[in-house]
């Protein structure tokens, strides 16, 4: 087995240096090394979307990326987005619409929804459904999630108007 490698990255605004095995994936690095357990692991093969985080501004499945690949990158997780207030309105919309039940998919869902809203300020309902179609939710049936994202988009438009 290859020995540990030193990586240096920015996680939620904090400088992080760590010794990691090359085989360690980013999800496990965030959860086990940094104790950022808001990033969830649902399938470990890149399908369910629960481990979605933002790397260099783009959303990625952290179970499909190695920690060493994040060397030098800016990584943002649900904890970071919560503390900065970036998704506070989206979180409130999810709360008001009960767009989560068990909550396991929620961090990844919020990441994916915020990614859509940054690219498309006024997504149609079908576009929201399409953009979130890589994120499993087994509890809600999705409709409440689509509503919450739609409500957030509308509120942000009104704020800007």
């Amino acid at each position, binding site marked *: 087995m290859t020995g540990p490698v030193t990586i240096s990255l920015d996680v939620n605004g904090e400088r992080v240096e760590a010794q990691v095995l090359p*085989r360690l994936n980013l999800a496990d690095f965030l*959860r086990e090394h940094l104790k*950022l*357990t*808001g*990033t*969830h*692991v*649902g*399938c*470990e*093969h890149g*399908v*369910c979307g*629960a481990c979605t985080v933002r790397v260099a501004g783009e959303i990625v499945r952290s179970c499909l990326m190695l920690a060493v690949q994040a060397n030098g990158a800016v990584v943002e*997780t*649900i*904890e970071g987005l*919560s503390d900065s207030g970036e998704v506070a309105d989206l*979180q409130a919309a*999810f*709360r*008001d*619409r*009960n767009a*989560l*039940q*068990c*909550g*396991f*998919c*929620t*961090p990844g869902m*919020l990441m994916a929804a915020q990614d859509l809203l940054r690219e498309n300020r006024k997504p149609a309902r079908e576009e*929201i*459904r*399409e953009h*979130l*179609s*890589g*994120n*499993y*939710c*087994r*509890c*809600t*049936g*999705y*409709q*409440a*999630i*689509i509503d919450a994202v739609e409500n957030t988009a509308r509120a942000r438009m009104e704020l800007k108007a």
Partner: protein
Amino acid sequence: MSSIRVNPETLSVLDRPNSYIGKTVPRPNLERLLQGRATYVSDMELPRMAHVVFLRSPYAHAKILKIDATAAKQMPGVVAIVTGKELSAVITPWVGVLSHLKGLKSAPQSALAIDRVCWQGEAVAAIVATSRATAEDAAEHVAVEYEELEAVTDMRTALDPGTPVIHASLGDNLAFERIHDAGAVDKAFAEADAVVEADFIFGRHTGVTLEPRSVVADWNAAETRLTIYQGTQAPHMVQNIAALHLGLRESQVRVVCKDVGGSFGIKVHIYADEMATYALSKLLRRPVKFVADRVESFNTDIHARDHRCKGKIGVKRDGTITAFEIDDLTGIGPYSMYPRTSAIEANQVVNLVGGPYTSKNYRARARVVFQNKNVMCQYRAVGHPIACSVTEGLVDLAAMKIGMDPVEIRRRNLIKDDAYPCGSPSGLRFEQLSHHASLSKIVEMMDYQALRAEQVTLRKKGIHRGIGIASFIEVTNPSAAFYGVGGAKISSQDGVAVRLDAQGSVICQTSITEQGQGSESLTAQIVGSVLGVSMDRVRVVLGDTDMTPYGGGTWASRGAGIGGEAALQATKILRKNILDVAAVILQSTPADLDIANNAVVNVSDGAPRIELNELARIVYFRPDTLPPGTRPELMATKHFVPREYPFAFTNGVQAAWVEVDTDTGFVKLLKHWVVEDCGTIINPQLVDEQIRGGVVQGLGAALFEKCIYDERGQLTNANMADYLVPMSGEMPDIDVGHVVSPTRESELGAKGAGEAGTAGAAAAVSNAVNDALQPFGAIITEIPLTPQVILTALGRI
């Protein structure tokens, strides 16, 4: 609402001032889930915690000849490698039977396989190491020699004389058989103008909880006490079973259930690998963590459905249904699950078929057979999707046969709303259902006539749309009749303790559990409403056998109806106790006082008299200022269990509007409607979202989900890429309406709502697809309705 009340004692909690009952309020526990600051078991770490990985059988049926772990044991970080024989020193085997399911049999099952494996995925050795990755590495160096045995995979031939018997001691592969005969079935079929028969096929599927099953077991050798952290729906059941098989007293086992990443019935059972994890902690005297990976989840989380059911219906020309008959067959894997057994689903099918209708003639046979596949057991809406699809499929076929509209045949046969209380030919008792009101409501919601007109117009353009209707009944609020009478130590009562703290807030401990349904919210809503305090003053504690009253937990749509009533009754006592002491402090009488907005107020004019925090201050810190003999009791506990009816049946109806592409076989779900009657609605939003989530799980079964086994018992799609579940892109918007018939068994009047969506969704979609395909003369009675199934029925492939 006016705050002036003439006599608050005569008011129900439903109309107290500022009641939260019937209101949409956000769940109090959402913020931690939204911020990624929840604690799921998979997040937990304890000092000296080791990780277990299970080496699992690649064969469906094989003898274990030899396990050689010599090399693996030498690897750095490996704590122990334990076989079934070794683990049997600390944990005893179990048999999943219940005495009220007469004749049900199963074989002893061990935490780890001993000598023989009976399904692909059964654990044969436990590899414990300082990290999961290390344990996985070591697992690859454990060599197991197997002698493959013939696998029994096809339920249709499981009982044939030429088929090997999986457990020789049982004599055959028949786990359970139930035969029921009511009324005069043969006569009823003879008197019918038409008799229709069909074979209904249901795919084996599973729950796919997004968080896999997870356990941290922590045996403290000094305290001689085991703490189990587990995402479970039934903590006291786990406590009982763990204690029983580890040779401990229940007081030596604490089960803690924090946040749970989805359950749906998957996490209400006792799994062999979880039992092994408890035993390993005791054996190794340190915390041990098990988190299933996704492949393990598919191979070992209980599967469900997998029924083949022959159905028959008799109908007269005027639409009167004369009789139902079914012959159901299901394969449950090699063991009946523990402790709830794997015969419940088939038993439910027998109970429920024909349930919404007036026909008194009903004959049924159900057979449950063993096979070398993963274990099957209760998953959301147990048996209901089978019974509903068979019943509603037959009703539509009958309507088609006599040329009657599907809504009309239901109007002519559904039990009248004023006919209650009454019973079913299978022996079910109904307190009050509302089939006709529900049907009328859904017809209006969907604008049935307009859809029919649209269907006709589009057909001319070669667009094939269909409408499917499915009425259903649903078991909720189960009494001891479900498990207790059969000898299982699964509580059917739930308890709530509620107390006023020293700052006038309320702490409420309940034995129901939370997996996202909103148990915490509905409890806080009830406590806040009954007591007269705001919800932000109510803290709900659940999921801990050390901290909560004894109770069943959250399953079978029982949390709101049973746990909610316990909360109501406990809070009524606390309210009385508070008013008693308030009367002493205020030199008034309890009858002249009420509690509203966190303060004791006058009944007469609503004027605040003393804040609850001030009352609590006096009681807790200055009891010396109270008159001699005054002994306030600011904590109250009550338990509740339904006694009059074994189950509180609910009812409802679903409708699907679909489009079938007859070239590709794809089904597009355009719209779905549900009207259901769960009695008193505590939080409309939570009820609606339970319905929607339940519907989508039913839609998964209807269109996508199937565990595909080959003839050797190999599960060929045990990953999320190949096993399809509903995603946001394919799901329709779902409109939900309600009819409210409260149960009179409780003051709250709430019945369950968590499974109704799953019960009828597949039936509605199947009926809609058949409706769409009417011009082609194709009838499909198989789910999932994959393109292959549809194109085959159309003769295209």
